[in-house]
């Protein structure tokens, strides 16, 4: 009764546009702070080279930012265009953080960013530094509200279903904002953005050092980035671990799927370092395990169990049966024929209403579901483990690899021998894409792991779509692919062009490849003329 192709396409479009958007977000989050730090050093020490650094990295920041804005536009409207039932069903709760994000954060970031780019000669030093700070602060504040919204999809607290309005309604705004999932997610995500910017600045600076050009400029940029990066990568990993604990608490299914833990292991659960999960048979064909570790991460104890997928499915089957009762009671309430008894029954079972809705994939009225359909719906209630198992491990491995690289960079930078470590510098150049891969697979784990729910245990994804047609979706996906890919290619070309030309693009006459002073400034590449 549901057009599976249409639902798949709706999901693909969202995944595609969101993942494109997140190619640009992390660099914005991190590079804005790096630029701010450079500019702060300039304001404090008056050394012009730091202003040049802020302006040059700010230029690259701008090239990236333009596409962040472009792809972000889609996101603000896409819930309405493609997820109309979602918008109706949870807009009362989910819309608020999005709107507040606009009012409180996005206005701040976007209003000042124009002055950041174009106001260098219109503002005093301190004014410009303040503008840079507000831009960075605004973009990070944006991330906070977006992650509050996203966290609510994962763990919908502070809200309740209303039979009168047929939707979720906010019952406690503070609970929505202080959602524990939002807090760990926010720090984990912005810190991942800081690491992205770090790897970006390290890689490009390393390349200048390898080419023996703009050395003073490159080394200073490198120093700023690796100090910032070390703190950031540690936050990412610590908060990643904290997410594991949060998941063990509120998203047991996602955790079990990431671990491909089909059967509940005895406490404390082991962590599977390597394995071959098989979703058909629900067993791991091969596994290499480290005892205790998962139990410690997920429960912070040696005695609590981490529930396996099979047991979770059995629990869900119970909740689906309870959801059927809720659904029947709701029909009576909507028809105005409910007795006091029915109302009480609804109150008792309404937290399982979402599970009842899972049956709508197979029958119009959940009450008509057969045992086989209920079993199928229970099977649907867990995501495929294998893709999560692998993407999660890729993310973690990349995290530790970047930790190692940043520690080495930090160490040799401190010893002042970094420019001699050619192997490390080359490794850093080729590692530029790593943080992007880690971010994208990280989001895949977070969102694919939420399936089959659009809103955890409340609204199944397949019910959340708009009433469009497959043709509409093919048209829009093609359009997005065409535009985004075209724009991405243009962005990359410009980025590579400006990164290769380096600080000479500022036209100050002080840098590699410039023929003469632009405005009477002395030429000594890499030197730091005082203003």
């Amino acid at each position, binding site marked *: 009764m549901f057009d599976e192709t249409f639902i798949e396409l709706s999901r693909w479009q969202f995944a595609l546009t969101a993942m494109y958007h997140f190619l640009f977000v992390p660099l914005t989050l991190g590079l804005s702070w790096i630029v701010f730090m450079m500019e702060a050093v300039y304001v404090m020490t008056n050394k012009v080279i730091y202003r040049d650094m802020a302006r040059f990295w700010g230029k690259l920041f701008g090239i990236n930012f333009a596409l962040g804005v472009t792809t972000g536009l889609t996101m603000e409207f896409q819930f309405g265009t493609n997820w109309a039932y979602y918008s109706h069903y949870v807009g009362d709760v989910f819309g608020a953080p999005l709107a507040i994000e606009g009012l409180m954060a996005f*206005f701040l970031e976007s*209003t000042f960013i124009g002055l950041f780019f174009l106001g260098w000669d219109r503002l005093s030093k301190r004014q410009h530094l303040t503008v840079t700070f507000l831009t960075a602060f605004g973009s990070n504040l944006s991330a906070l509200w977006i992650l509050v919204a996203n966290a609510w999809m994962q763990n919908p607290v502070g809200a309740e279903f209303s039979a009168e309005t047929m939707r979720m309604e906010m019952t406690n705004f503070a609970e929505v904002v202080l959602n524990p999932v939002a807090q760990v997610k926010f720090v984990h995500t912005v810190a991942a953005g800081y690491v992205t910017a770090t790897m970006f600045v390290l890689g490009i600076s390393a390349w200048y050092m390898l080419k023996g050009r703009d050395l003073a400029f490159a080394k200073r940029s490198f120093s700023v980035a690796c100090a910032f990066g070390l703190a950031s990568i540690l936050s990412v990993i610590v908060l990643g671990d904290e997410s594991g604990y949060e998941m063990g608490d509120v998203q047991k299914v996602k955790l079990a799927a990431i671990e491909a833990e089909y059967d509940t292991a005895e406490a404390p659960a082991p962590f599977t370092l390597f394995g071959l999960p098989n979703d058909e048979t629900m067993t791991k064909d091969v596994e290499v395990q480290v005892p205790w570790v998962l139990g410690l991460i997920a429960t912070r104890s040696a005695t609590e169990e981490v529930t396996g997928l099979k047991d979770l499915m059995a629990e869900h089957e119970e909740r689906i049966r309870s959801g059927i009762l809720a659904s029947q009671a709701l029909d009576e309430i909507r028809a105005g024929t409910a007795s006091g008894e029915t109302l009480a029954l609804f109150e008792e079972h309404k937290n399982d209403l979402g599970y009842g809705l899972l049956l709508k994939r197979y029958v119009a009225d959940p009450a008509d579901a057969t045992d086989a359909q209920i079993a199928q719906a229970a099977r649907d209630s867990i995501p495929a483990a294998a893709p999560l198992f692998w993407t999660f491990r890729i993310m973690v491995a990349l995290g530790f690899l970047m930790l190692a690289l940043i520690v080495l960079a930090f160490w040799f930078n401190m010893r002042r021998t970094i420019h001699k470590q050619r192997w490390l510098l080359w490794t850093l150049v080729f590692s530029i894409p790593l943080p992007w891969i880690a971010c994208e697979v990280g989001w895949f784990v977070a969102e694919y792991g939420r399936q089959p729910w659009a809103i955890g245990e409340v609204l199944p994804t397949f019910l959340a779509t708009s009433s469009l047609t497959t043709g509409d979706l093919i048209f829009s996906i093609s359009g997005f692919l065409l535009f985004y890919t075209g724009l991405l290619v243009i962005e990359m070309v410009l980025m590579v062009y400006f990164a290769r030309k380096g600080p000479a693009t500022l036209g100050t006459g002080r840098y590699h490849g410039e023929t003469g002073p632009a405005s009477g400034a002395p030429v000594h590449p890499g030197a730091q003329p005082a203003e």
Partner: protein
Amino acid sequence: MILDYEVLKFIWWLFVGVLLIGFAITDGMDMGVGTLLPFVGKTDGERRVVINTVGPHWDGNQVWLITAGGAIFAAWPAVYAAVFSGFYMAMLLVLFALFFRPVGFDYRSKLTSQKWRKTWDWGLFAGGAIPALIFGVAFGNLLQGVPFHLDALLRPHYEGSLLTALLPLLNPFALLCGVVSLAMLVMHGAVWLQMRTDGAVAERSRTAGLIAGAVTVGAFALAGLWVAFGMDGFRIVSQPPLDALPNPLAKEVTTVPGGWMRIYTDYPAAILAPVVGFAGALGAMALSRIGRPGLGFVSSSLCLTGIIFTAGVSMFPFILPSTTDPGSSLTAWDATSSHLTLTVMFWAVVIFLPLVLIYTVWCYARMWGVVTEDDIERRGSGAY
């Protein structure tokens, strides 16, 4: 302070109006400027002048659109769901056109190739003209009503595939509304350019503003006559109390020929909206003509306010009337969020919108002044 539900519902109707007007005055100006770019700027230097009058501000201005989108989501979730999915193709067209703006503004002057720059100039034209036109077309369709109904789960459904529904969307009345919207934003952008440039660009902008102003007045008058004599409006026959929990299916609605004019007999003060619309446009033209574009800009801002309010009050309390199932129509009373969400969002607006206005004014003030080619030449890569 706890405001009661009915009052909040009305305040939110006003707030959405304010956000849309804020969007028109700020980002609408950028769209007008984008539309005029290839015509008032003949050389690359002139075009850079045009672009740099809005260069530092277009990004902040665009947030009015994004915030309006978010606010509609939070305050009128049913409207957000039904309008944006129902106008799917139109929304895509707007989005695709808007994509040209961030990259157009930011990338255009980064390379010196003339071909590259001219391509982006047309990109900025499309990013200005297409949304300006489509937003008017969308309002035209709201006035006419949209073929949709809500099922028992309150899920919106539409008649026919939306791919084919794009054509009826572009009917003559809706296109006329599109002309109103495009012309008023072009007028607005032209007055802005006249104020912020000098020489040939300012002169051409003055001429363009006068033409666009005349078109605005004519098309707005024609649309008004059409609404009064050639079109059905919608009227609520019965509905639950205004402070009831929102249920769009609980009311009875009929259509009445010329029904959208009723508000002007019931509340004669409402006539102020169209009067300000006309007077603002005529004032902007007169002031622009005598070389007072600063006051002209204030006047054209009033024109936008008047015209948008005219559309709003004519339909009040309707937001999205349904032609195929009038009972499914969405109104400011029955398409809103819960009392709590409206309260929380009310405070968010009351606290943050004034702050936004303060720092926006500060940013404009810092970048104020006539933009000239010499000025851009001097700033080199520090300008767009």
